[in-house]
């Protein structure tokens, strides 16, 4: 099963290498990892999507906790959360096909961010499922280049996974 972990880490140099190294060294499978600053400048947040059964996840959790730079780990898989990912896709579209591509973009609420002579570059945000569907719809036209940010996620409602204790 896939799990989504929200991991708060010290914003120290090398912390990404420590986390990534841990996953590869212990044979844990990362689906995606997105990292960036949080509301506190000295804390970064990693959203890690990892594949594995209960036992694997328990080890992932415990081994991550052993890293001194890891402050807090939340497995939010079972919680209500919003998740988003952003994708940029450069797709073949000569002038004759552009209309169709734009219609697809419309359906997915994607935006055109660049136009070339024979290509269109689109930006789309959404959850995993939506991004996958978007990608599939564009595939027949010939995808020249694709880049995804990896997923970021946040609990719904008043619950949060930040440093402070939860209010509820």
């Amino acid at each position, binding site marked *: 099963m896939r799990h989504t972990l929200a991991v708060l880490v010290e914003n120290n140099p090398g912390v990404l290498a420590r986390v990534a190294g841990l996953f590869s*060294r212990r044979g844990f499978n990362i689906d995606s990892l997105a990292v960036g600053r949080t509301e506190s400048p000295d804390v970064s947040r990693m959203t890690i999507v990892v594949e594995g059964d209960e*036992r694997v996840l328990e080890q992932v959790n415990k081994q991550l906790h052993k890293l*001194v730079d890891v402050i807090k780990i939340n497995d939010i898989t079972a919680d209500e959360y919003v998740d988003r990912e952003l994708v940029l896709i450069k797709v073949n579209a000569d002038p004759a096909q552009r209309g169709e591509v734009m219609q697809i973009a419309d359906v997915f609420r994607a935006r055109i961010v660049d136009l070339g002579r024979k290509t269109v570059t689109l930006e789309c945000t959404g959850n995993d499922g939506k991004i996958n569907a978007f990608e599939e719809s564009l595939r027949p036209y010939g995808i020249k280049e694709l880049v995804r940010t990896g997923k970021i996620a946040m609990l719904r409602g008043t619950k949060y996974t930040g440093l402070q204790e939860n209010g509820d």
Partner: protein
Amino acid sequence: MEITAAQALVKCLEKEQVEVIFGYPGGAILDVYDALYHSPIRHVLVRHEQGAVHAADGYARATGKVGVCMATSGPGATNLVTGIANAYMDSIPLVVFTGQVPTSQVGTDAFQEVDITGITIPVTKHNYLVKDAVQLPRIIKNAFHIAATGRPGPVLIDLPRDVAQTRIKFDYPDSVNLRGYKPTYRGHPNKIAEAARLIGSAARPVIYAGGGILNSKASRELLTLAETINAPVTNTFMGLSSFPGDHPLFLGMLGLHGTRAANLAVTNCDLLIALGARFDDRVTGKLAEFAPNATVVHVDIDPAEIGKNVQVHVPIVGDVKQVLRELLSRLEKKQDTSWLEQIEAWKKQYPLVYRRGEGELKPQYVIEKLNEINGGNAVVVTDVGQHQMWVAQYYRFKRPGSLISSGGLGTMGFGLPAAVGAQIGLPGELVILVTGDGSIQMTMQELGTAMEQELPLKIIILNNHVLGMVRQLQQVYCDSRYMAVEFKFHPDFETLARAYGIKSYTLRTEKEVDQLLPEALGSPGPVLVNCLVCAAENVNPIVIAGKAISEAVDC
């Protein structure tokens, strides 16, 4: 007043009450050595950086303090890596300093630059590259704290030369605040109560005690537990010396080369009480048949060890000494049972045996004699190989912490430098190194360190002219096709000893051992005893790879 970060480093070590540093100098760490010039801290100059880190490791194991070592950048730093990994695997607290090229050159493949923090991420508990001199005292404070607390381990601090030269205002913090590092010491009371209930109702309990008992200095509590509930005790290799080797409840070591009694007891128990032990593959053999009928209680300070290899029914995260104290307060005395009769029967039926008097000196005999001569009271350091296993099997340890050996990494060459560190930590004690003819040649340059420091080490080489442990593996797994295990040349160890000014003996027979070993161990200075032992001897019993530990065989 402002001082350089290098001077601050030395002051921090003084504040941490560091008595001795094992090290080897070089350009990138010049400033630190310059600062040491005025310090009362003893610096032990080794002959190779691997020696420095193993010596710090041996010192830490012998004294229970944090071992400290240092080396220069590049090759100095990489020479430390094996020893850092060794300490990491065996949970030994070290603080390791390395010099680094100036910050402006970091990342440019500068002369003697190596990314030592990158290299050691997988083998340190934590490490630091110091970029801001002002942070150094806090980093050192944190490093000692991290190394010594929770599950101990090595911490490395890499110090670029320009940072070492930067002047700072010295202020040593007196507390640590690491929000990502908060070890748990007290076990959960409900879990402890559950463990107590299970112990109360168990018919066939076994205590499986590991290195965590020694980390936690919980030998007394272990003994009280065993005697209160009348349960037999087996030790992991790393746990040896935590329980008296001659106690009637002692089963000996379990696992790959464990006693049959220990392995049978674990296989047949209904309650396995695992204390500071990590279910290593050398211990469990085929996992599905390890303690197959047992409810498992596991006490460990590292939550990640619980449930890692074996399913645990009662997990207790905490310091084993504290947990045992709480547990004991909830236990009632249990009487002798038929289970102990069964254990006794196994012990009688399957003693450790070897054949004597085949015209050759048997290595096991030498260990038995060592044990006899000092009554199990020496500090025994070993190297890695068959000789190490014979020490585990035939030496009856009496004092907690008196076995110093490389268990997790199995590092040949650990022995001599670790013995140097142990003897420096315990100057008044009898420190015996039991090594092999292969292992000693990996780090024998440290004989120079031992002599320079005037250490009265007793070095026993069980010289079988072969990499015995690998020879045995080839006999078992490669149909006796012996490849690259026999030494066709050895130095004359007596001459070698003489070159260093060490008194030496060569022993060839039981009679010579009887006559001369007591004299050798009794002499005041350093001694090297070259025991020419039978080359064909195997460590028995042995559990063949993939088999259950109950299926041990002799080979």
